[in-house]
């Protein structure tokens, strides 16, 4: 493996972990997916034709593995939240911040095809063209899923913070 590619591949790991974690709402599953993605990326690196950046390419690999798993039903994206893992990973609760578990709860309410587009655009900050390539859909479809995702999410994250600020006044 060329050193430059090794350097860049290492730099992809935190991004891949973040996306997998947000997509799956489960730290162990996410890390399994990342590990398999890295293995495959290393093996396929000599075939990478450099049409897109390395990061977008590794995200494509991850997406393909994710889809394969969904199909084979070894992994269901809508699993119940892995509370123990979330507790381990979440930073100490700050009352004006979103916790990871809040994000999981809100994201899991989105259909997976909207969730993936939203995460790749808003969190991974990939271009619409790269997202289209990664997900193997037209750019127009990326934009329409993005619209639906953003409308569905709208206000939910903010209201979670509001609710946390005034726990005693929250009425169930």
């Amino acid at each position: 493996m060329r050193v430059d590619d090794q350097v860049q591949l290492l730099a992809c790991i935190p991004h891949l972990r973040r996306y997998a974690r947000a997509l799956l709402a489960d730290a162990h599953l996410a890390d399994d997916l990342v590990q398999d993605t890295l293995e495959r990326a290393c093996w396929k690196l000599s075939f990478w034709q450099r049409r897109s950046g390395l990061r977008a390419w590794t995200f494509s690999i991850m997406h393909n593995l994710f889809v394969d798993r969904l199909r084979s039903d070894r992994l269901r994206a809508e699993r119940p939240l892995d509370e123990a893992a979330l507790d381990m990973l979440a930073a100490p609760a700050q009352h004006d911040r979103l916790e990871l578990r809040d994000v999981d709860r809100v994201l899991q309410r989105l259909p997976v095809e909207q969730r993936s587009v939203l995460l790749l655009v808003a969190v991974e900050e990939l271009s619409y063209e790269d997202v289209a390539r990664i997900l193997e859909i037209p750019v127009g479809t990326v934009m329409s899923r993005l619209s639906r995702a953003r409308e569905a999410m709208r206000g939910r994250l903010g209201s979670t913070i509001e609710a946390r600020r005034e726990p005693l006044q929250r009425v169930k």
Partner: protein
Amino acid sequence: MTSQPISEADLHAWADERLAPARRAAVEAWLADHPDDHARVDDWRRDARLLRRALAQVAEQAMPPRLALPAPQSRLAPFAPMAALLLVAAVGAGVGWTARDRTAARSTIDAFAQRAAVAHVVYTPDMRRPVEVGAEQEQQLLTWLSKRLGDGVEAPALQPLGYRLVGGRLLPGEHHPVAQFMYEDAQAHRLTLYVSREVRADAAEPARFRFASAEGVHTFYWVDGRFGYAISAEADKTRLLEVAHAVHDQLDPPK
């Protein structure tokens, strides 16, 4: 400037800061006249910010050891480049290398020193291929590293202190590559010099040595106007300080 109507795609592109200045101005003018849509895209931006902040901790965490170390039966085990890649991250986790540490006020250069120590621990035990390019190709090594770092790097001569150059390699820094030189003494004890352009001093500051120690690895480190330098070894601290002085005098001679 443009007669193209504002589309939903434009609104997304505005929220995601992907518009060229002329188009951005047109969209902003349109949003000023359409407060409901303005509120909508503001919410999009706010949600994106909240998501990024909440998820930042995942990107910044140290790699869990489970992820980073390939299983013994893994078909990857003979695949050295992948193993090296993951091992760097794993050892980083072991010595407490996380971006959270890096966010403390004084810690950019301390994080740099931590990375140097990690790299030392990862590569010095390797007997088969401790370096990418050996000392017998020193000139090519220096040319290559200098090109990648974007400034001339040299390998200081440490024979007077009992260390011979083994060779060097390129490693990932925070955003750009860094150089690592490896030296060895007659007892095969190894020392590494880690050089990075990512930490540099303001020209005005005089270089001063800092020291860190973790997991039995001592590191002296300093910055000058061109590079940051870190010398790591398991050696006795006094001896290491001598080496640090020698390196500093050769690479950054007193004026």
